[in-house]
């Protein structure tokens, strides 16, 4: 494996690992706060148990997210010193703000976890709210830095070096709003539906378990609206990509030749030799419409770019199809949940709904990984789009295969441990002896 590929693989693996924890660190505190708020207003002790379990889940995942995030901030320099030397003065600003948001999150998570009997109930709920808000803020700041790599602004190039640096203009880059909105919604949708899906699965096995029913209702409250809104935010993102990164859009859609009234290509496999996409469904004018809201609009194809500047079309296209497919399924499940709730049906006894939800549990996370694959692989061969090539930013150190394999092994180990711990701590329903008062086998059902 060449060093550049090893460096890219290590970065991809580190990001793919970290993003899972970052997403849960954004979504889970919201679940925890909603559960505690319900306990405070109704006195329902199941909600208290859920708040405590989700808080413990947040703590475990936040700690792993904190250390894997630290690894990433170092890896920027370890693997991409050329990029950091170039971009540090501009994207340092969102990273500084992210540092503060992360600090705030760490402080109030400590207060929340260890302060149950040390501060007033109201202060405790507020600590939880601050965890949720600062978690979302820190995600937003990091995504702003990534958006700058896609649509760099706030500097001039003078003799190959940056000049007239304006970090604020860099933060207000034209991709910032679309990307942060898409990622924040994705975090709530993925976390909410994953938790709801796990409890849906457990309800299928144990239909009258009050613990799982309550968990399901709170998780859906957070996940379903986000899943329904996500396609709209996706439309905003796609139009911005069409405008600022036409090569990425062309790769997403295997759109080889520039033209008008361009069809939307669904599925299929691109043949890079002939520039054709086989076995695909085509919707006439679809891409023109989605990219520019005009059936006859011209869409730039890959033919406008030198072959050396093409991103990997099969990877970007497949990842994009995967993300859209999974996101659509999740949005439909969200709509279904909304319809059932609107008709005041009990969601936790609808077997088909529970099955669909259980199926959707991992989808948000797979969709997020696929979406980031589109963003990152679709930007290649650039690390800063149109300005700095990835190959020019990589470290001169040889033998990068070794750290890549080392960190991969470390992360695999950690991932397995976290999954096992989460099962032991959060997902498994409380033992009957502990909860004989609220576990209600075949008891009277109430709409959740």
């Amino acid at each position, binding site marked *: 494996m060449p060093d550049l590929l090893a460096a890219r693989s290590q970065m991809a693996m580190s990001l793919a690992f970290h993003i899972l924890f970052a997403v849960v660190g954004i979504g889970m505190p919201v679940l925890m706060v909603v559960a505690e708020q319900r306990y405070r207003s109704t006195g329902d002790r199941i909600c*208290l148990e859920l708040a*405590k379990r989700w808080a413990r889940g947040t*703590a*475990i995942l936040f*700690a*792993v997210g*904190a*250390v*894997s*995030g*630290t690894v990433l*901030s*170092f890896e*920027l*320099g*370890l*693997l991409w*010193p050329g990029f*950091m*030397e170039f*971009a*540090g*003065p501009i994207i*340092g*600003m969102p*990273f*500084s*703000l992210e*540092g*503060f948001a*992360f*600090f*705030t999150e*760490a*402080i109030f*998570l*400590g*207060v929340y*976890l*260890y302060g*149950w*009997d*040390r501060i007033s109930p109201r202060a405790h709920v507020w600590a939880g709210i601050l965890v949720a808000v600062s978690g979302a803020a820190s995600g937003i700041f990091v995504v702003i830095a990534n958006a700058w790599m896609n649509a760099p602004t706030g500097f001039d190039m003078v003799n190959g070096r940056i000049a007239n*640096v*304006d*970090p*604020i203009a860099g933060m207000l880059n034209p991709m910032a709003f679309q990307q942060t909105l898409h990622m924040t919604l994705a975090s709530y949708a993925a976390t909410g539906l994953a938790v709801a899906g796990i409890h849906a699965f457990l309800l299928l096995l144990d239909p009258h378990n009050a613990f799982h029913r309550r968990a399901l209702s709170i998780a859906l409250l957070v996940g379903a609206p986000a899943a329904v809104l996500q396609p709209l935010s996706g439309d905003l993102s796609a139009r911005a990509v069409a405008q600022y990164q036409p090569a990425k859009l062309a790769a997403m859609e295997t759109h080889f030749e520039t033209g008008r009234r361009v069809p939307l290509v669904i599925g299929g496999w691109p043949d890079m030799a002939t520039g054709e996409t086989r076995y695909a469904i085509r919707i006439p004018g679809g891409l023109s419409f989605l990219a520019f809201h005009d059936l006859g609009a011209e869409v730039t194809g890959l033919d406008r770019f030198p072959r050396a500047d093409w991103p990997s079309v099969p990877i970007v296209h497949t990842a994009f199809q995967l993300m859209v497919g999974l996101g659509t399924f999740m949005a439909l499940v969200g709509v279904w949940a909304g319809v059932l709730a609107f008709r005041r049906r009990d969601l936790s006894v609808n077997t088909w709904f529970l099955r669909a939800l259980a199926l959707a549990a991992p989808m948000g996370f797979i969709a997020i990984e696929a979406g980031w694959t589109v963003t990152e692989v679709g930007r290649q061969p650039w690390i800063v789009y149109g300005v700095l090539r990835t190959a020019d930013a990589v*470290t*001169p*150190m*040889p*033998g990068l295969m070794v*750290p890549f394999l*080392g960190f991969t092994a*470390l992360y695999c180990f*950690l991932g397995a*441990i976290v999954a096992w*711990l989460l099962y*032991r*701590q959060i997902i498994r329903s409380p033992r009957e002896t502990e909860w004989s008062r609220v576990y209600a086998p075949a008891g009277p059902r109430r709409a959740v």
Partner: protein
Amino acid sequence: MPSDIALPEILAGLIAVSLNAYVLFGGADFGGGVWDLLASGPRRDRQREVISHAIGPIWEANHVWLILAIVLTFSCFPAVFARLGTVLHIPLSLMLVGIVLRGSAFTFRTYDDQHDAVQRRWGRIFAGASLVTPVLLGVCIGAVASGHAGPVAAAGSFTDRFVDPWLTPFSLAVGLMALALFAHLAAVFLTLESDDPGLTEDFRTRALWSGGVLFLVAFGTLLIAREQAPLMGVGLLVSPWSLPFHVATGLAAIAVLAALWWRRYHLARVAAGLQVSLIVWGWAGSQYPYLVPPDLSIRDAAAPAATLRLVLIALGLGIVVLLPSLVYLFRVFKAAPSHSVRGPEGGH
């Protein structure tokens, strides 16, 4: 000292402040791991419990000081960040592995509340990583301080380019010194973390012993510095302000041991904090005006003024939000020894 102190100097100073805070708070957490490993005697399990309770609510907040130093470095002195990432790739990567294992093992141990063999294994990983990480941090600092982290040669063997700059007797000595310092600091802090006089005595003994070890290691490091690290040797031993600095550091160290001897633990804590801070600032002063000697000075490596100004403003705003939060955190948890960890009735 120059009279035209300006933005780059202020931000370089702030990096030293955050490193100081990291060594003070994060260092004590690492040291806690060392005492977890060396827990012994009739109160062995109680010692571990006190350590765990002292670290529990605040280790992530302490860890953020390192992130702040990193972020300040790559925003304000990008060339320094690029240089360190390249020359010190290997020790920094190993240090990262240590940070990852230590942080996650501690969390897993805390939340995996079955008292079984699995939990003890987490304890060992946590303690082992606490031992190795400070040494690597010290090695990196030693490499920078001794002026070995110059530009990477374009040609030469892998060892010449990426190993020799940091694998020197001096940087290894600084690594050992960091470990002894953190362990000493943690033991001093831990004397105040429990109500049990027996435990306090345990940590007092440990603090006195580790203080002695620290003296020896620091003296050895100084001797090697004269021979091996010309730049730091000159800064440490010759420049006019260095003598009072050394005297002050030595006095603080003696004050710590004296206060421990007469069981004045609050005084010992203050003096230990002072001693650690003096060491950090002594190092920073010995390299001034260089961030990475021999070639990257504060002025040369600084980002454009627009960036520096904004980062300073962001820091100001951040401090307005963070300082009260941090004070609140410490007041909630450090006012009295912590009893509850996981919720009302300590329940699960």
